[in-house]
């Protein structure tokens, strides 16, 4: 699991990784012994919650009247660069969603093609790690549907979401989830929000909704989904932009 990866990475990653994490926004030294306790805590949270969720229950869905008057965007609100700007001003005509990696059929879908796939609409609560929460309506395609179209190979264990937004340090945002969350019925790739096209501030043209986890897992501005066996080779090896910077990969709480 990612926990094993984490430790191995920490042991072999050497100074560059150590320094990178030390100077990260958290000031965290990831090879500190205390990290083993934190990893153990994450291990208990992941497996404890997976036990509770083994029947794959749905999160509560709300009625339109419950939608919060506002929905604060978090993280990137407008990706840098001319490429994205040109895409956004031409209704994402040149955008394509690529699904590759450990799949039998590599997919490349335009937004129009994507929107023709069977849609799911859900009104759910978004919980940020900072503590706030908001309720919104999302329309999109179940990730499981797209994955069946692409045909996952048996070695595939994680899906990595590659995003179009660059963070302050120049790294592109990325996130990852495992198959347990990927095949949950409410895990969707959303292109609509509150009855409109997904706004740029919320990740246009496509973002992830992974309803049983905290906000930073819900990758925005998705351009590519890669099915992989291990997360080690991405970023600093912890499975996501924020996980690389000291946040837990599993964010069920």
């Amino acid at each position: 699991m990612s926990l094993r990866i984490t430790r191995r990475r920490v042991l072999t990653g050497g100074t560059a990784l150590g320094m990178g994490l030390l100077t990260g926004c958290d000031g965290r030294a990831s090879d500190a012994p205390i990290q083993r306790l934190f990893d153990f805590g994450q291990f208990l949270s992941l497996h404890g919650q997976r036990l509770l969720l083994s029947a794959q229950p749905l999160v509560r869905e709300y009625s339109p009247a419950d939608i919060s008057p506002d929905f604060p965007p978090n993280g990137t609100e407008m990706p840098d660069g001319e490429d994205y700007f040109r895409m956004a001003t031409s209704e994402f005509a040149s955008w394509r969603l690529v699904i590759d990696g450990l799949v039998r059929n590599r997919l490349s879908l335009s937004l129009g093609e994507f929107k023709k796939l069977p849609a799911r609409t859900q009104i759910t609560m978004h919980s940020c790690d900072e503590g706030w929460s908001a309720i919104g309506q999302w329309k999109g395609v179940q990730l499981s549907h797209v994955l069946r179209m692409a045909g996952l190979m048996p070695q595939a264990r994680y899906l990595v979401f590659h995003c179009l937004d660059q963070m302050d340090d120049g790294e592109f945002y990325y996130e990852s989830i495992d198959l347990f969350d990927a095949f949950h019925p409410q895990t969707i790739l959303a292109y609509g929000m509150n009855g409109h096209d997904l706004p740029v501030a919320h990740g246009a043209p496509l973002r992830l909704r992974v309803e049983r986890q905290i906000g930073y897992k819900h990758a925005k501005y998705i351009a590519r989904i890669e099915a992989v066996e291990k997360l080690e080779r991405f970023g600093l090896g912890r499975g996501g932009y924020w996980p690389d910077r000291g946040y837990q990969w599993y964010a069920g709480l």
Partner: protein
Amino acid sequence: MAANRALDLEAFAAGKTAQAQREVIDRHSVIVRATHWINALCLTLLLMSGLRILAAHPALYWGNYGYYGVPSWISISDTFDDVTAREIGVTRVGDYSFDTTGILGVGYNSDGRPVVRAFPRWMTLGAGLGIARDWHFFLAWAFVINGTVYLLAGFLSGHFRRDLAPSTGELRAQHILRDLLDHLRLRHGRGEAAKRYNVLQKLAYLTVVFVLLPVMVVSGLTMSPAVTAAFPFLFDVFGGRQSARTIHFIAANLLLIFVLVHVIEVLLSGAFNLMRSMITGRYAVGPEEPA
């Protein structure tokens, strides 16, 4: 507790009455002692890391959603004061705002320059939100496992029934009132009475163990989207995710008040003896009346 260990045999042989003896008893079982101190450590660090998490969004709401823009019932913020031309920290409770510069909202760093931050650095654990969450969740597991050991042992050994459950006599208004007056006059039980918890002490411990701490755990779990996926009714129990967050905060404050009173009581009622009893188990009981 209160298992007689050793009467002072010498004094006994000298023919003094039993009441005049200094008697040493086993006051606390090893499980109560160990879990008590692990719990105290966990709760202290949970409070500190919790404050660091709260600092990421220091405003509390009621209901399911809450973010800047939704009315909060309590918040910590900073604002530029035109009159004094400096940044001030503002803590607001309902309609009342207080200037809390130096403590909440705006503090000073080591070279005396003002910095915007909800809580003083010494109050918090974790340099950033990510590491504070690491601490908080690890400690929460430690606290829950430790608490489970304490609860199981307490029920199985009869400790709760024997030492914490008040008798019907103790629950009479008259008895409680007298106990309250004794507390206010700082009069502490002697002799036989000192071997047992008094009724206010029992009620305080029972409230902490069976109300406040469980509320802490369950309101905390209600903030987890994975837990509420499994148990959506938790939203109804607390009135929404933000309400659960508010209740988590209030329960933490009540616990803090308990601990303050608890520590003061220990200091006032023979700190050395009581602390020794909570560390080694041994507790000395003096004579019924002062000599």
